[in-house]
């Protein structure tokens, strides 16, 4: 199968075959992602347009582009760039797309990438829009599960803020394409919205919900932890209580499946105790690295380069 996609906006745009194609391509690029430099995208310029800081996403796109032999035009954050001030995003996109061969956009408003696509003459990759989509994060999560566990029918628990963390929403959507058995673990006030649960069930996903973290720990292949943010709780003692209940330490790992892996989009607050870092289960730093081959794969696809 071969597919060419100009823009990467939302996970919902992808079929399972297309996701598999991207993951395969990332696999072929993984050793190059670790070290070296090729000329696959030599002469190409990638513009990074970040309206809010996200060091990790930005740096991994830069690394991906440099490994492929291309160049990066870094427009930094909103405050440091006079290009952006007072101008509409639409105008900025129209201008920047004349300077570059592709644009990575991170923005504070939901739907910004979708709109940018309408005004851009070059491919747009969504690097995260507000509480909206973050497709490259979802793809690197899938790649991590594929490489470090199994992507076919995995038993996976997703823990933490499932209400506001919309990147978790697109991850669950994608997992449903692989017949995952998903358990959502969260406090009542941060539950996955019913609408999404219903949507997942109609797609034939196996979905369970619980507030009890320890109950699920020993029966899963993948533990996906997310941040629980203080701002969501008007009462600080309530936040403390919840944060402690949804935290993992190495003591809880005694009876888990031997090959169970622990993931986290990072940065973590204290959901994962540092005592977990040196266990065989920790994969969150590896996961972070996998962002590079995934972004390399996407860059070559949107710019139409063969590898």
């Amino acid at each position, binding site marked *: 199968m071969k597919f060419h996609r100009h823009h990467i906006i939302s996970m919902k745009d992808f079929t399972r075959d297309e996701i598999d194609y991207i993951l395969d391509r990332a696999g072929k690029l993984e050793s190059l992602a670790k070290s070296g430099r090729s000329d696959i995208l030599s002469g190409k310029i990638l513009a990074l347009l970040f309206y809010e800081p996200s060091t990790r996403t930005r740096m991994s796109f830069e690394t991906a582009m440099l490994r492929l032999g291309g160049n990066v035009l870094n427009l930094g954050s909103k405050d440091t760039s006079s290009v952006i001030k007072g101008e*509409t995003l639409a105008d900025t996109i129209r201008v920047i797309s004349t300077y570059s061969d592709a644009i990575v956009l991170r*923005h504070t*408003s*939901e*739907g910004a990438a979708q*709109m940018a696509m309408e005004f851009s003459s070059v491919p747009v990759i969504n690097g995260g*829009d507000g509480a909206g989509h973050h497709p490259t994060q979802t793809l690197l999560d899938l790649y991590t599960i594929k490489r470090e566990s199994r992507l076919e029918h995995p038993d996976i628990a997703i823990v933490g803020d499932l209400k506001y963390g919309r990147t978790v929403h697109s991850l669950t959507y994608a997992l449903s394409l692989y017949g995952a058995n998903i358990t959502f673990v969260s406090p009542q006030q941060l539950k996955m919205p019913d609408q999404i649960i219903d949507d997942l069930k109609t797609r034939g996903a196996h979905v369970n919900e619980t507030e009890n973290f320890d109950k699920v720990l020993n029966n899963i292949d993948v533990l996906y932890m997310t941040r629980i943010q203080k701002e969501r709780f008007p009462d600080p003692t309530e936040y403390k209580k919840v944060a402690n209940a949804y935290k993992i330490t190495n003591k809880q790992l005694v009876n888990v499946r031997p090959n169970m892996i622990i993931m986290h989009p990072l940065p973590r607050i204290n959901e994962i105790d540092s005592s977990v870092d040196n266990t065989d289960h920790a994969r969150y730093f590896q996961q972070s690295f996998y962002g590079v081959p995934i972004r390399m794969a996407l860059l070559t696809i949107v710019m139409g380069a063969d590898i």
Partner: protein
Amino acid sequence: MNNHHELRVRPIVNGTVIDHILAGQAINVLRILGITGVSDAVVSMVMNVPSITLGHKDIVKIENRELEEKEVDKISLISPSASINIIRDFDVVDKYHVEMPSIVEGMVKCTNPNCISNTNEPVTSKFVVRTDPIRLRCLYCEHVISEKIAEYLL
């Protein structure tokens, strides 16, 4: 000639009769058509008339006016059952059911305050329409409007 029957459903010479409006939605239909207390249009409205198909329905009659496509599309969003009768010289010259478009553009405001379509960007709101029950999904931020659609009409 002033019997009570005629009082309720006075025939019109030229204009539009919007029939089979979901009971309770006639006022929103007037809003869509920009008919307010201060406009000089001749309008009659009947509410909660018994109806075989709907149980109860509303009817709106507007004299000397035919509707624009956009107005009909908006009516379809709040009352998919509505039918439009165009009257010329006392005759019904055209009669059709409203049809919900699959995409509505610039008709509905997104309920997500953080949506790009609610900023000063040169972009009009776009929604994908799903039926049974009716749901509008923002093409930009994917928020869904499934109730009180009339309140978000632009």
